[in-house]
């Protein structure tokens, strides 16, 4: 009896069986698709995620503020703020774009920054190019921005660098606020870097059940030099950590079962398999 191919076929069959189960029940597949679309609709907000549809971006500045969209090649497009919202034009270029809105009220300069992924032709530029470009006098730069297909998750540590006029601001207070009510404060280090572990503050999360909710968060800081004041805010979304429904412990146990099974299989069957020394 050749056990090795049978094992491989067994795994293949398991996988096919699962697919057949899904495919053979169109109602179930369609329901899952509807659920997914409903979930996506619920979470569709301006964010750093990989969305196809760009929703209007809420800007916490007056309509008199000026706003521009930085493209991956560092060219800019003027934007219009209407009733505190910005509707993004299509650029036809893939990769992260940055919305930068500025407003001056007497001696106070306010800046709002938001990174958003847009789809289109490959931009041919590294994401780091637009992140490192000097876009405002006082700027909070994600270090790094969540990669394409990635996003901010609760319980993860993410870093940000505070720059003032292109130079890092050390020992400077930075604040992180979330829509769910958390508030974190930290000071930057010598390189102007601050790292926050994003709060696990989503209510009613059920362990073992996928939950695609996200919430808004802002990272903000201010700086004063003489009578001039600067305030800046980086806005984004963060999502529930996947560890609620993805268990690494069970993953390790399953892998060990596979390992043991493989070892026992080889030991027991070396005489009767098609394996020859």
């Amino acid at each position, binding site marked *: 009896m*050749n056990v*090795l*191919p049978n094992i*491989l*076929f067994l*795994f*293949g069959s*398991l*996988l096919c069986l*699962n*697919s057949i*189960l*899904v*495919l053979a029940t169109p109602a179930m*597949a*369609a329901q*899952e*698709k509807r659920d997914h679309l409903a979930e996506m609709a619920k979470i569709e907000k301006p964010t750093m995620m990989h969305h196809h549809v760009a929703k209007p971006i809420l800007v916490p500045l007056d309509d008199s503020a000026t706003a521009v969209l930085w493209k*991956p090649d560092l060219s800019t497009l003027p934007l219009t703020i209407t009733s505190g919202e910005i509707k993004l034009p299509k650029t036809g270029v*893939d*990769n992260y774009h940055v919305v930068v809105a500025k407003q001056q009220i007497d001696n106070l300069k306010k800046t709002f920054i938001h990174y958003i992924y847009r789809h289109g032709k490959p*931009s041919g*530029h*590294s*994401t*780091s190019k637009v992140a490192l470009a000097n876009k405002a006098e006082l700027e909070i730069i994600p270090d*790094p*921005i969540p*990669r*394409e*297909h990635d996003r901010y998750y609760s319980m993860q540590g993410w870093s940000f660098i505070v720059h003032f006029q292109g130079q890092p601001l050390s020992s400077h207070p930075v604040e992180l606020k979330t829509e769910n009510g958390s508030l974190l404060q930290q000071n930057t280090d010598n390189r102007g870097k601050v790292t926050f572990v994003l709060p696990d503050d989503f209510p009613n999360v059920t362990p*073992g*059940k*996928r939950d695609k909710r996200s919430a808004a968060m802002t990272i903000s800081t201010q700086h004063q030099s003489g009578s001039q004041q600067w305030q800046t805010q980086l806005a984004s979304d963060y999502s529930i950590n996947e*560890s609620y*429904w*993805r*268990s*690494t412990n*069970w*993953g*390790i146990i*399953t*892998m*060990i*079962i*596979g*390992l*043991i*099974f*493989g*070892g026992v*299989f*080889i030991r027991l069957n*070396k005489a009767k*398999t*098609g*394996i*020859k*020394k």
Partner: protein
Amino acid sequence: MNYLTNLSVIRKIVQILAFIFFVYGGAVTGYYLSDKITSALPALSCAYDKQGSDFCVLIPFQHQMHHRLGEAIASGGNIMMALLPTIITLATFLILFVILNKAFCGWICPLGTFQEFLHMIGQKLGLQRKESLEHNVVKKIRPIKWFVLVLLVFTFPLLAGLGYANHDLGDSFCRICPSRILTTLAVGDTTQLHVDTANTTTIVLSIFADLMFGLMLAFALTIRQPFCRICPLLALHAVFKKLGLLRLVKNAVPRCDKCGLCAKACPMDIKEIHTDMTSKDITFDDCTLCGRCVEFCPDKNVLQLKYATIPIFSANPQYFKKRKKAQTLWEKANLVAYFREKKQHKQEPKN
């Protein structure tokens, strides 16, 4: 034998360097996916590895089937425009593939390298190695890679895009790929070794992936290249193997019929290297162009690795003798032999 003239040693050095570069090279190339070198590598280097320098062509293929072609067909969009990214990815893949052909498997692939090193560890631990699988077993295993390529890389993602299959089947191969688990673990990220309880599909896929990874670890200690035999990239390479410049060439002589050392040396157990007496180009579907068959061929120029028309490594009786001797020495040195010898030394004075 001088190590630097031993093709297997040279290949191991290249494999180690390639492993380091593709698994950790993001420090040089950049963190973002837009920084990666080609995004269509003909080897299993994973995009989930955030420190990697490039990722395999199967990732964009699945993504394009799911989010471009499938969704374009479902929404009545422009199918040609939806196919354009796939054509660009395929073109990029082919440019790379023409240069090295299937040697991406035997010389570059991080997962292939890992399995080879596991096999070496198994040998050094003195585990009873399986030199080769029976041909009928090999023949039964061979079609699996085609099913994996057609079903998991193209069909399921396309069906997910069309709305006929679960969204989680949109990247069905990635979800079971051992390279995803290996490369992320290699950079200290344990999140990809998980059981995902989101729904039935994710539970089945994640358990399958973890079990298969465990099985691969166990099998690789005694069997050569266990996962490579069912790898969909091997199948994709087979489709385009005629375009590659690097090839395995055979100038058969009557002695070939009786010898068979080449087939015994082959890590993929391709018996046809030995039995095929008519074909000139013997870069078979399962071949990884590792060159071991050429090393262990005792007859001058019978087997050759050729780049276009230029022979770059040819079978040679002198090389064969040295190589065989080196191999025997290498295989003798293992923990079981060491302890056996030590035990004998202890017993000798008593006797």
